C-alpha cells in the first residue's frame, strides 16, 4: 500500500520537470519559473526565471542555473 503512495525525491523531481516551480534559497530569495532540468546535486535549470524578494518581483531572467547547494 505504502509502495504506491511513496514518492521519493528523485521520482518527485522527474515527475515535475516541465512544470512551473518555486525554488527557495538559503538567503530567502525565491526563484519561480519552468523547471527544465535537475540533477543529483539538485542543481536546477529554470526557464523564464523570475526573482522574488519577499513578495516583490525582482528581475526577470531567461534561463537560470541554480547551484544545488543553495536550494532549500
Amino acid at each position: 500500500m505504502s509502495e504506491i503512495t511513496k514518492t521519493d525525491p528523485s521520482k518527485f523531481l522527474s515527475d515535475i520537470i516541465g512544470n512551473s516551480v518555486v525554488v527557495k534559497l538559503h538567503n530567502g530569495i525565491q526563484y519561480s519559473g519552468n523547471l527544465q532540468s535537475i540533477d543529483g546535486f539538485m542543481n536546477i535549470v529554470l526557464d523564464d526565471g523570475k526573482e522574488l524578494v519577499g513578495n516583490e518581483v525582482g528581475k526577470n531572467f531567461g534561463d537560470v542555473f541554480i547551484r544545488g547547494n543553495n536550494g532549500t
Partner: protein
Amino acid sequence: MLVLLHPYLQVQNPPMSEASEPQTILPLEVIDKSVGKKIRVLLTNDKEFTGTLIGFDDFVNMVLEDVVEESNDGVSDKVIKKMLLNGGQVAMIVPS
C-alpha cells in the same frame, strides 16, 4: 561464493525475540514509518514545516504535501501543495 552454500558454514539465525525486547530502531525506520502521515520538520535555521510526508531518500531530502511553513516571523498563510525539502538543513523530524 561456493563456500557460502556449504551447509556447515551456513549461519543459523537464532530465533528473533520479537515482542520481548525492543530492537534498535534506526533513525531512517522512524521516518519510513511516518510516510503518509503528518510530520513536523524543524530546520537548523529556525524554520519549521508541517505537512504530510510522501517520501524521502538517504540524504533525508523529503517530499511533502500540503505544507505550512513556520518561521520566527510567524506562520505563513498559504499552503504549499507539494514540495521537495533539501535534507541539508533538516535538524529534527517529529511524527505526529
